[in-house]
């Protein structure tokens, strides 16, 4: 897999620092799982984060803290839920961060019609989280309904490809544009283009779909 488009370095820095909202973090984690270059990049950034904290100094632990730790350190070995769950449920064609949210794989997605040639499906995020995580499916040759951005938007291609003025986005590529970028991606002819998208919750994606389609269909 040749990946040409990566998250902005500042996006990877936020991911490493743990400050990305969940929908964005899932998209970045999925890309990182697919992208060797970004795994290397993330290692460097993690090291920077560690170096920053290394200068945080030391604070003495209270007397007896070590004894309390040793008293609690039994011989049990904890196997994380995630390991077994992602093994049991995961569609092996999907990267782990996504597979754990999409137990039945892409085939099991319940698509909702959202315009001619366009369907969407929301993926679960934790309650109270700002932002929306969704799958977007666009028929070959159709315009991808994103038009102008407001707030951060991350789009990761899972299947098929689209083209816009930045180039061709194929499987594994991620579009991480500043909010004022204007572009009109068109799905490549042939296979449906399926993307994993994180958007700001304050913007209704559906409204934006309609807005993007307005010039064509007068919706």
């Amino acid at each position, binding site marked *: 897999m040749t990946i040409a488009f990566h998250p902005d370095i*500042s996006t990877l820095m936020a991911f490493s620092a743990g400050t990305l909202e969940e929908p964005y973090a899932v998209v970045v984690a999925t890309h990182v799982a697919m992208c060797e270059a970004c795994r290397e990049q993330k290692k460097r950034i993690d*090291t920077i984060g560690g*170096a920053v904290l290394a200068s*945080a100094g*030391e604070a003495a632990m209270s007397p007896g803290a070590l004894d309390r*730790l040793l008293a609690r350190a039994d011989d049990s070995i*904890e196997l994380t839920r995630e390991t077994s769950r992602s093994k049991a449920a995961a569609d092996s064609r999907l990267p782990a961060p996504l597979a754990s949210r999409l137990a039945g794989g892409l085939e099991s997605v319940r698509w909702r019609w959202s315009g001619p040639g366009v369907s969407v499906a929301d993926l679960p995020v934790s*309650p109270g989280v700002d932002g929306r995580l969704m799958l977007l499916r666009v028929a070959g040759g159709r315009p991808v309904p994103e038009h102008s951005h407001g707030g951060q938007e991350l789009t990761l291609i899972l299947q098929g490809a689209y083209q816009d003025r930045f180039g061709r986005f194929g499987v594994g590529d991620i579009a991480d544009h500043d909010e004022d970028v204007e572009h009109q991606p068109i799905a490549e002819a042939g296979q449906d283009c399926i993307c994993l998208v994180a958007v700001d919750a304050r913007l209704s994606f559906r409204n934006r779909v309609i807005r993007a389609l307005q010039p064509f269909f007068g919706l």
Partner: protein
Amino acid sequence: MYAVTMEEFEGNPDRTAVSIEPIELIRRVAEARDREALTRLFQLFAPRIKSMMLRLGADQAQAEDLTQEALLTVWRKAHLYSPEKGAASTWIFTIARNLRIDLVRRHSSKPWVDLDDVELASDAPLGSDTVEQSQIIARVAKAIEHLPVDQRKVVELSFVQDLAHSEIAERIGIPLGTVKSRLRLAYERLRPLLEDLH
């Protein structure tokens, strides 16, 4: 996600006994349930983790509890560590950090599906040829001190204060785009020091 420099420990005569690389200590914990190795990990990391927790806004008791939990998690999950995930100290700080994020989110009714558990879990065996990257970390820590103040500030607000980029923009009164460009500039300056990281 974080790593710690061993430089100061090595320079301290009282602590020369703990200059064994953390990766080796984790291996001993994983393979031999070695309590002596756990003790050394405690000596190396507990004061750092506690200090980090205090800087992140925990009170004394919370910082102490979170540090205990972090080291207990290291004890229980040592077999899940793999060097390809990064430096051992990075892994330990990741655990500590996640515990704190969990706590904060529980209290703010903002639960978080634990992404990092997926990352932390690994079937990869403990490698024997990977050495701790502590010198690189020491180098980077020094370079961070010499970053232009405005770049250093956004790096610290992001990694230490845990602020989202939009929150950093609000906090220091600059556009979001400027926060991002300062982070990019800081990274470009530090990156040459990280080329031999593996």
